[in-house]
């Protein structure tokens, strides 16, 4: 006997507070308190997102702040959620380190009528009202493979250099990458290994080294994380592999500028993190003002970015990522 997984397939209730009616014409409330809870403060990328979000809050008369742990572990975000509840914030914007570990406290927050918006890295669906996705996960995953395949002429071994083993967004993208690779046109390409650099510069650097040494025929590395791609590019730029191994993935222009210019990297992509923060801020405000409830099909205005529509499962998609290369990289500064 005993309690097994089968007995408890449906646990907890769905507390999603969608009973309230949306009023699309409600004005954005003044003085809204928004809190950004990044995976970890000190992550430069998250910092850009959050700063942009806080600035956006200023635009509509709200007040934003960024709080968070200094290590990207699942549990450390939880205590911040609790304090945000005690502080009666109007909305919490969270980039979840773990989709489930933060669930309990977020549900409590929603019960207390605090709006919850996930961005960058999603939580479980029932624990937030909206998820601001930088781009559709599917599109990110597949396009990574498509890009590198073009660079490699659809031939050769490739590897992935990811962040931590548990990062939700990374794992979702990697699933789509693997799926894309199953298509017949990639029959001459082979994914040999997924390595984890833990979003730690030095670890990513060594993982790159290891990959190249262990797989002499490696032709390309996809690193869908800003820390990883920079580290990989840096290793290659100083090594004998330069010009022989293709690097692609997601990176920020400031980090990658040097490697694009010295021809280590031909191209990489990313969305504009500032826009992500900006959109998150407006979405949270729209929720807190009652313009939307998070139901599919609702629309809201995100300041200068224009109008957005909520998709399936409360997902709002920022837009397709930008591909950066030698020609356009100097137009960006972040």
């Amino acid at each position, binding site marked *: 006997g005993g309690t097994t997984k089968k007995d408890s397939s449906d646990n907890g209730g769905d507390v999603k507070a969608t009973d309230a009616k949306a009023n699309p014409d409600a004005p954005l409330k003044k003085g809204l308190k928004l809190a950004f809870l990044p995976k970890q*403060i*000190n*992550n*430069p990328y*998250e*910092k850009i997102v959050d700063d942009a979000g806080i600035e956006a809050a200023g635009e509509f008369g709200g007040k934003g702040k960024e709080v968070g742990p*200094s290590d990207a572990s699942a549990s450390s975000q939880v205590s911040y959620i609790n304090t945000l509840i005690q502080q009666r914030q109007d909305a919490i914007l969270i980039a979840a380190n773990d989709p489930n570990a933060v669930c309990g406290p977020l549900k409590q927050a929603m019960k207390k009528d605090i709006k919850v918006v996930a961005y960058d890295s999603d939580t479980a669906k029932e624990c937030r009202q909206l998820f601001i996705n930088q781009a559709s996960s599917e599109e990110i995953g597949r396009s990574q493979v498509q890009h590198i395949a073009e660079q490699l002429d659809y031939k050769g071994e490739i590897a992935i250099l990811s962040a931590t*083993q548990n990062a939700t967004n990374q794992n979702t993208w990697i699933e789509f990458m693997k799926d894309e690779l199953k298509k017949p046109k990639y029959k001459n390409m082979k994914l040999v*290994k*997924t*390595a*984890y650099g833990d979003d*730690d*510069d*030095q670890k990513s*650097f*060594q*993982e790159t*080294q*290891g*990959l190249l*040494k*262990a*797989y*002499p025929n490696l032709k390309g590395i996809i690193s869908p994380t800003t820390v990883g791609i*920079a*580290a990989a590019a*840096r290793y290659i730029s*100083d*090594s*004998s*592999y330069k010009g022989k191994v293709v690097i692609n993935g997601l990176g920020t222009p*400031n*980090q990658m*500028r*040097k*490697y694009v210019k010295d021809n280590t990297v031909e191209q990489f992509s990313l969305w504009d993190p500032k826009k992500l923060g900006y959109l998150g801020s407006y979405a949270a405000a729209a929720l807190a003002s009652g313009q939307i409830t998070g139901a599919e099909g609702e629309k809201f205005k995100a300041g200068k970015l224009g109008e957005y529509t909520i998709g399936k499962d409360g997902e709002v998609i920022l837009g397709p990522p930008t591909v950066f290369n030698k020609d356009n990289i100097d137009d960006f500064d972040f």
Partner: protein
Amino acid sequence: MTATIEKPTAQAEAGRSARSLVDTVFRAREISIAGALVLLVLFTWIAEPRFLNDQGVKDLLLNAAILVLLAVGQSVVVVTRNIDLSVGSVVGLSAFACGKFVSGTDHGPLLVALLGIAVGMACGLVSGALVSFGKVPALVVTLGMLYIIQGIDYWWAEGEQINAADVPQSVLDLGSGSVLGIPYLPLISFAVLAVTAYFLRSYRSGRELYAIGSSPEAARLAGVPIRRRVLGAYVFSGAVAGFAGSLWLARFGTVVADNAHGWELTVVSAVVVGGVAIVGGVGTVWGAALGALLLTTIGSALSVLKVDSFWEDAISGALLLAAISVDRIVNVRMTRALRKRSAR
């Protein structure tokens, strides 16, 4: 920490042969670590010859360089029966300070190194002053310093990142350049190692560090200036860590606030694996350096051997345990054999 009851019973009157055996026992630590290292490299090389090609050797040396440096600094402190847990934070702070300093300028590597050393010395001075003049336990103080320095670093960095593009090429060249095929970094580490080793062996103040660690009470009665020496050890360890921070910048180009976060335990384990007793008084910086080299080589070997990344931690932990256990068992066996031999 484990004062073993079974004591080494070497006969005072034991002759020459026994004496050289004693020497061997005391040097066994370095030898067995070096042996383990050679085995590991050979094994990996046979399985994957590219492990030891030009680039491979270069990578091995480069990977070890910074840890070796930190292990050298740490051993000097550990030998005095103290410990410096703040090294990771010091490297982080110094690397960031150097990054901030050079970003967008064309300061040369010398200036950067000096700045790093200065930052590290300042940190070492505070820890050392607290430990030596405050007469408070080193472990607690340096754990406190770990947090304090880290906090300052985070607070200063505010999530900022220094990118390779902002760092002057001359500094980056220090991290990637080489002479006669040997990269600068390991050469620098080796130089620091050799000088430190010679100092510890052949200077009064060096020997006094061992004396303090071996018996602080006896050192006091022998008139050893304990406070000054301990302070010196911390300042040295801090300076080395700070220097490592500037080399970090040169090597990796990219720095954020939490560089080398959590390295303190790696450094301490390198030192311990290398045979420097955590209770002080015993061990050499050569051993510590070998320990550091072994640890980084385990990491490199595992990834070259295509070991599933999920297994890496477990295997390196197990290897570490195996290394220190085998060493200890060999040591005990030899001491026992020695006792029985001297029976005749």
